[in-house]
């Protein structure tokens, strides 16, 4: 899903420092550089995506999130962003801990596995969900740690993470009556702004 850029931008102040974990082709960072004048760095491991970042003039560092982030000092970034990557790391809870250690503020965007389509796949068909947003089979998916909005909120409570903002979006990247009333059932994407 293409994330509406203003959703993340609204929480980024001009000129601040941003670390984007799993930055892909650097689209988000490029937007933040152009719109907000941030000093941004992206971490990525996919060679094609790294090349795309270099071409786009985005600072990109080849680093595997599963290898830890101990090379970044405490509070060394204003904002640490991670979009659509949480579900692909080996230990999401540890990565979140690291994000909160490095960033004064963290923004997380992840697919909600509690969406009714996912539930239908599993509940009625008895099959793991496959959709155009998550087009992988269970055996070849890079997405190894799915969670629901309820799961994430419970992790935040457990870890005493403060949730500053929540946004819940449909497949079209919009919020509507349904996503507001039943976020865990009706939204495909969850965006959280969190801090310690």
């Amino acid at each position, binding site marked *: 899903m293409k994330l509406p850029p203003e959703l993340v931008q609204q929480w980024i102040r001009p000129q601040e*420092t941003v670390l984007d974990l799993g930055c892909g082709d650097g689209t988000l960072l490029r937007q933040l550089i152009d719109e907000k004048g941030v*000093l941004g*760095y992206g971490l990525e491991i996919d*060679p094609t995506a*790294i*090349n795309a*970042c*270099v*071409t786009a*003039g*985005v*600072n*990109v*560092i*080849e*680093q595997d999130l599963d290898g830890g982030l101990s*090379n*970044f*000092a405490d509070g*060394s970034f204003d904002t640490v962003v991670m979009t659509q990557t949480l579900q692909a790391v080996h230990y999401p809870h540890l990565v979140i801990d690291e994000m909160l250690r490095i960033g004064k503020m963290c923004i997380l965007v992840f697919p909600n596995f509690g969406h009714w389509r996912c539930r239908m796949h599993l509940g009625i068909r008895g099959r793991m969900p496959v959709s155009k947003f998550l087009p992988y089979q269970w055996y070849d998916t890079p997405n190894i740690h799915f969670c629901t909005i309820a799961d994430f909120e419970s992790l935040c409570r457990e870890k005493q993470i403060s949730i500053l903002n929540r946004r819940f979006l449909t497949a079209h990247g919009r919020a509507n009556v349904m996503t507001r009333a039943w976020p865990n059932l009706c939204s495909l994407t969850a965006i959280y702004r969190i801090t310690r």
Partner: protein
Amino acid sequence: MPKTLPKDSVGLVAPRRLRFDQPLTLASGRVLERYELVYETYGELNAERSNAVLICHALSGDHHAAGYHEGQDKPGWWDHYIGPGKPIDTRRFFVVSLNNLGGCAGSTGPTSINPATGKPWGGAFPMLRVRDWVASQARLADALGIERFAAVIGGSLGGMQAMRWTIDFPQRLRHCIAIASALRLSAQNLAFNEIARRAITSDPGFHSGDYHERDTLPRDGLALARMIGHVTYLSNDLMGEKFGRELRAGSFDIGQESAIEFQVQSYLRYQGERFSGRFDANTYILMTRALDYFDLARDFGDDPVRAFSGALCRFLIVSFSTDWRFPPERSREIVDALIAARQAVSYAEIASNQGHDAFLLPNPRYEAIFASYMQRIHRELQEGSSP
């Protein structure tokens, strides 16, 4: 020289020589009253004089980085990466490549005549440090009318020079590209350099470096030094793949007493002999000492973050997975310091089985990222955007 030159070659090239009469005070305190630098250029300097790129060579390199010399079969040492359509695209960039001071390929060095004595400098040639090279490179740039390089680029010891530029002449480069390099040598690196130097100095033909005067050459010592160095440039994987335990002579059969010779033995011997025929032993000692001395952060309370904090350029750092001379961890130290210093940096860790030598060899991913970065520089120059 090949009968027809490849299309993506800079073609036939010839070195040029510049004489500098302004004394150069070296980091050691000694002064070089005058010196000469030999260099080559490829491509055209544009009207704004903004598209110049400086290539800094490593331990055994020289000014001949690309193209062919008259009558020679082999192109320059970085020909794979410099030429029309190659990552350092000579249709876009004006490439300057020199033989460093203290070298043995034409620039003033231990084999040159010491004006004070009328004899070759030999062992009396002043010790040089990376910053001395950078200072002399800046003077070469002055002479060529280059105020600011679009990029200063180097691999290994060349990368150290590129990084030194960002400290000594921050205004004079837009980009620093350091490949398979390090902020300083590790104890293991220092140890290998010492073994190489001991191999040379213990050769009976060395005579404290004044072998030219005595009409001898420490050839065996230099060959041995090169053999040691060569092992550290290759990966275990590559050596296994190239040579394994293949025998070149002798046999393992019971009842055979003739000495066995592995392929890797004869390869190393060949490399050593070839090198000692073309390279100067004093230069080898000088280069390894410059490597030993180098420590980018020393002047900054051993803090590389402070060392980089005055830089005004963008950085590309590249390492190779099986490089154990300057492994990826060394490059990551550079990257971490640059990020902490809030400098613009990109970093790629290229999968390769070729060890340290990978920075000289073909590798599709390395070529792609190098080319993308250089294209980006070219675009910036055209758009006139900073830095």
